[in-house]
């Protein structure tokens, strides 16, 4: 018998009011694989991630982690399930009332009750892994640049050595060089942990670098899923338009033309 996929999503649907955001998503992410979901703004990428984490309750469908249904899970079982996850948020979402090292150590201290001194050691080690020195640990997040904040957030996401890591727009708002640094770090960190990664982005350079497989979300449906090497000859007009960044094509932006 083969092991169940790390993440298995079936028939996931979600609408906000009358707006249908996810219209039946089916997706498997295998153990140790890095899957990137691409798609335009508002195509439901973030909602998909948040449904898996239980931050948003889907209207219908099933999400299984290691074969266990997680939709509607609560209490201790949910806490236990969430321990498997790390997440890098789009805006870094660092706690601004805490120092940088306390941010990185947060999950260890609060979630796993590790003594502060030991957690601090681990935090500084993780900061070093993302290329930040000991002195940065004592600063507050507001004193850091955007790129440094992202790196701290990455260190926080990997601090508890999660089995599954989510990356929400990891390179948005960064210059191309820093974006590439972050991409490298993501690849390194995921490899080192042997973790399963699910990312969402609309940055194709980032997607090509960190993905094993790519899935494209359009109007609440997955219109193409395949290995990253096949993306340039997908035979799908929507995918072609997106990865080449053309305004003309089957995907029409809802903008008023003069």
């Amino acid at each position: 018998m083969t092991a169940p996929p790390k993440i298995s999503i079936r028939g996931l649907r979600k609408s906000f009011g009358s707006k249908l955001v996810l219209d039946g998503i089916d997706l498997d992410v295998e153990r140790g694989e890095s899957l990137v979901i691409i798609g335009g703004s508002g195509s439901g990428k973030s909602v998909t991630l948040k449904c898996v984490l239980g931050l948003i309750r889907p209207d219908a469908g099933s999400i299984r982690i290691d074969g266990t249904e997680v939709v509607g899970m609560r209490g201790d079982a949910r806490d236990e399930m969430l321990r498997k996850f790390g997440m890098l948020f789009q805006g870094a979402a660092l706690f601004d009332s805490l120092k940088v090292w306390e941010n990185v150590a947060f999950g260890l201290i609060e979630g796993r009750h590790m003594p502060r001194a030991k957690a601090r050691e681990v935090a500084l080690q993780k900061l070093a892994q993302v290329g930040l020195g000991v002195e940065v640990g004592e600063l507050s997040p507001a004193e850091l640049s955007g790129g440094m904040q992202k790196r701290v957030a990455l260190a926080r996401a990997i601090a508890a050595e999660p089995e599954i890591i989510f990356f929400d727009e990891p390179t948005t708002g960064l210059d191309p060089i820093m974006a590439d640094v972050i991409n490298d770090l993501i690849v390194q960190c995921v490899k080192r942990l042997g973790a399963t990664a699910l990312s969402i982005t609309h940055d194709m350079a980032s997607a090509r670098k960190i993905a094993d497989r790519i899935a494209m979300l359009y109007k609440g449906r997955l219109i193409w899923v395949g290995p990253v090497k096949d993306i340039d000859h997908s035979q799908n007009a929507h995918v072609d338009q997106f990865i080449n960044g053309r305004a003309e094509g089957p995907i029409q932006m809802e903008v008023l033309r003069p």
Partner: protein
Amino acid sequence: MNFLALIGRVILDGLETAGRMGMFAGNGVRHAVLPPFYFRLIGRQMLAIGYFSLPVVGLTALFTGMVLALQIYIGSARFNAESAVATIVVIGITRELGPVLGGLMVAGRVSAAIAAEIGTMRVTEQIDALVTLSTNPFKYLVAPRLWAATITLPLLVLVADTIGVMGGYLIGTQKLGFNAGSYLKNTLDFLETADVVSGLVKAAVFGFIIALMGCYHGFHSKGGAQGVGRATTDAVVSASILILIANYIVTELFFAK
């Protein structure tokens, strides 16, 4: 729109909000009474809510006591009952004005601050980040604030009572010509334990309301800076109104005894 439908919509919306607040409160209390407790966070919040509210609460109490002495003197002079000033001032302050005015001032200061902080954490996804780091936001953010406000408000009101009576004493002796000794004697002789205790119970209830409204509106804020601004306003307005309603209910409960 149909007029009746409008009434229905308003009532349904109101009930929905009340239900959500009730569930939020229940969740908050559950996490506040069940371990683990974040004593460090409770301490920090007590400092922010209690200690730093001392100046505003003290000034409010001082001037309320002073004006109360003047007004009661004018009123009681009409039927030659000037000697009642000290007694009425102390009862008025401890039973009513200390907790209510103190509570309203703290509502303005603290509900707004809590809603703004938690609201910003909501819109910058820090609350979602808490969840992904295996930390329950109710336990980490709501419970410490509920505890801190419920504990500190009675302490603040105790200080306000003292300063308020002192304000009345200042006006009574310096302006209205009362003898200092007999003013203090009148203050203490007719004061009952229930006067102070009922005021402190009110203060604890108000403290709970203040923290709850700050947390609730902060938690449910959305849409960036504007949303946080609206949450802040809503927190102060709803805390103030609930304080006035709760004040009546608690008074009625004590009155019935």
